[in-house]
């Protein structure tokens, strides 16, 4: 029994890490209506920049701020050069544009910082901690705490500030928001910067866990089913979905694995997403789209 619980809890915590990545997607989707595939390489870019700055001797806080500044800059450029010319285009087009964007991020990150592997130490130890008779990783616990802080912070931002109100207005009805004087460009840049911030945090956590290298960009593939299950527009939904996916994946791998073969983790999340969709076509917490002729 305790083995089962170990797997469950471990998986759930791992799922929180997926959700962290997925939150960035949600922010951008709500503001720009686009599924930003470049989120993965933004994470790589952020982690590489931070790791290299720290290795060059900068204190962590400075490195963090500099990286964040760079991400804000790239948000500006993205809005100006990519999103504005492509306004009103189809979802697929915008998605492909973000795919192109991800190539650019990847190339720039590797030109600037090289392709070597860097280890990242952000001061979070990774020891097994004994909690309620279960062996849980201290790193995972810290990551969950950080994710919780992030979510709370974002909720406060969107719920309590004028900026958050503007974000919600643009997401709900862009035309109306425009008509009351909300500058869409500014809101877009802010949303992308926030997503950049989330990418930075995710990059630090994932980088500390598995080293900063190219495969960080591949985490986005796990975030996709989390988004589909949780809905593209809800941060809370994505967290819940992340936990479900993380736990489900691990349990399936360990308990179903001996039956149908190992490597179930490869596809389990997606099949789960598909099943969820059949039951609830717009995701757990997503908005329902009404279709009219």
């Amino acid at each position, binding site marked *: 029994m305790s083995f089962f619980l170990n797997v469950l809890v471990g998986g759930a915590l791992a799922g929180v890490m997926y959700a962290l990545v997925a939150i960035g997607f949600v922010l951008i989707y709500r503001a720009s209506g686009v599924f930003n595939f470049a989120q993965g390489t933004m994470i790589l870019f952020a982690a590489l920049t931070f790791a290299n700055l720290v290795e060059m001797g900068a204190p962590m806080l400075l490195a963090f701020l500099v990286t964040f500044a760079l991400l804000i800059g790239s948000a500006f450029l993205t809005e100006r050069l990519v999103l504005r010319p492509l306004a009103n285009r189809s979802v697929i087009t915008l998605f492909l544009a973000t795919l192109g964007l991800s190539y650019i991020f990847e190339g720039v990150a590797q030109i600037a910082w090289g392709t070597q592997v860097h280890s990242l130490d952000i001061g979070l130890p990774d020891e097994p901690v004994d909690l309620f008779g279960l062996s849980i990783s201290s790193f995972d616990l810290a990551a969950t705490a950080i994710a919780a802080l992030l979510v709370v912070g974002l909720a406060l931002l969107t719920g309590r500030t004028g900026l958050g109100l503007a974000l919600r207005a643009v997401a709900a009805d862009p*035309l109306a928001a425009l008509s009351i004087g909300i500058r869409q460009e500014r809101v877009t840049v802010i949303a992308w910067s926030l997503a950049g911030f989330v990418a930075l945090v995710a990059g630090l956590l994932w980088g500390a866990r598995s080293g900063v290298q190219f495969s960080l960009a591949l985490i986005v593939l796990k975030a996709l089913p989390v988004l589909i299950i949780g809905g593209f527009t809800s941060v809370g939904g994505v967290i819940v979905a992340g936990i479900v996916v993380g736990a489900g994946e691990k349990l399936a791998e360990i308990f179903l694995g001996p039956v149908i073969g190992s490597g179930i983790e490869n596809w389990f999340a997606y099949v789960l997403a598909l099943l969820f*969709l*059949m039951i609830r076509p717009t995701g757990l917490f997503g908005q329902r789209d009404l279709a009219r002729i």
Partner: protein
Amino acid sequence: MAAILPSDPAATQVAPVRTGRRWPLWLLALFTVALLPFAIGSDYLFSAILVPLLILSLAGLGLNVLTGYAGQLSLGSAAFMAVGAFATYNLQLRLPGLPMPLAMAGGGIVAAGTGLVFGLPSLRVKGFYLIASTLAAQFFIPWLLSQYSWFSNGNDSGVVTAPPLKLGLLDLDSPAGRYALTLTIVALVTWGASNLVRGPAGRAWIAVRDMDLAAAAIGIAPGRAKLFAFAVSSFILGVAGGLWAFTYLGTVEPAGFDLDRSFQILFIVIIGGLGSIRGNFLGAAFIVLLPVGLSIAAGVLAGSQVDPALIENIQKVIFGILIIFFLIVEPDGLTTLVDRALRTQFRWIGSRKSGNQE
């Protein structure tokens, strides 16, 4: 959504459907270009440029049927190619004496069946969320193929090598032979597909793509049309997969049919032009030739002094910029771009009927 004007998520930008045809002149020219490589006789041209170009065009055509004409977004194209490749291999292996083209057709049929299964969710799920189904295919199928060694004839590593390419008495194992076989099969399937899209099936697809509720209202069964699109698309992709394994790489490996490949095919379709037949070839040419061209240009300009990693990363950035540039400048794809250029720059060739071609 943040677009200023409300946009319908189901509608996609497409190139207008052309149905007029004038046979002799362009067919002759097409023949010449297709046969020109035999005169040049370069191994590199055959094995590394033309064969993958043709196969990717075919794959693009498969995806175009599904996404361009029928409007169902799919990110699992490579998985269906994998099904075709492994099915062709197994048919060839277990039914000795089966001629290669039939084995490939069989591979296509198996892929079509698989496509049908993964297309079932499209009856319930619409729009962008549909990628869940094809993504599930994209991850599940390679796992299945490499997990059960039956598919790879007991090979531990899950990789199989294709048998020598023979068609009856013809030994096609040379680069030129492979090109010839690929060209023939691609031409045949393209011809079949273009007939299909210009007929009632194609029109049903376009109706479903543009507004499936309206299509249902005028008597087209959207469910049936969508499933048919999945089947045809997966058949074409399966044949492309068989070609990929047998005439191009010579090995069949699930990892070669991963998500990156699906994205590549999607790029081909978008850049070439959704809802066009010719666009697939243009898109594939762009995707195949651009990295090669950049690589050769870098080699010529920079020599071996410059760090290859730097050159490679610069290429990536250029590629990304070009993709975005393309999407901004010509949303209907290369095919419309080329048409427009020819229409405006080469007016002396002859005028075209204006408006939507029919």
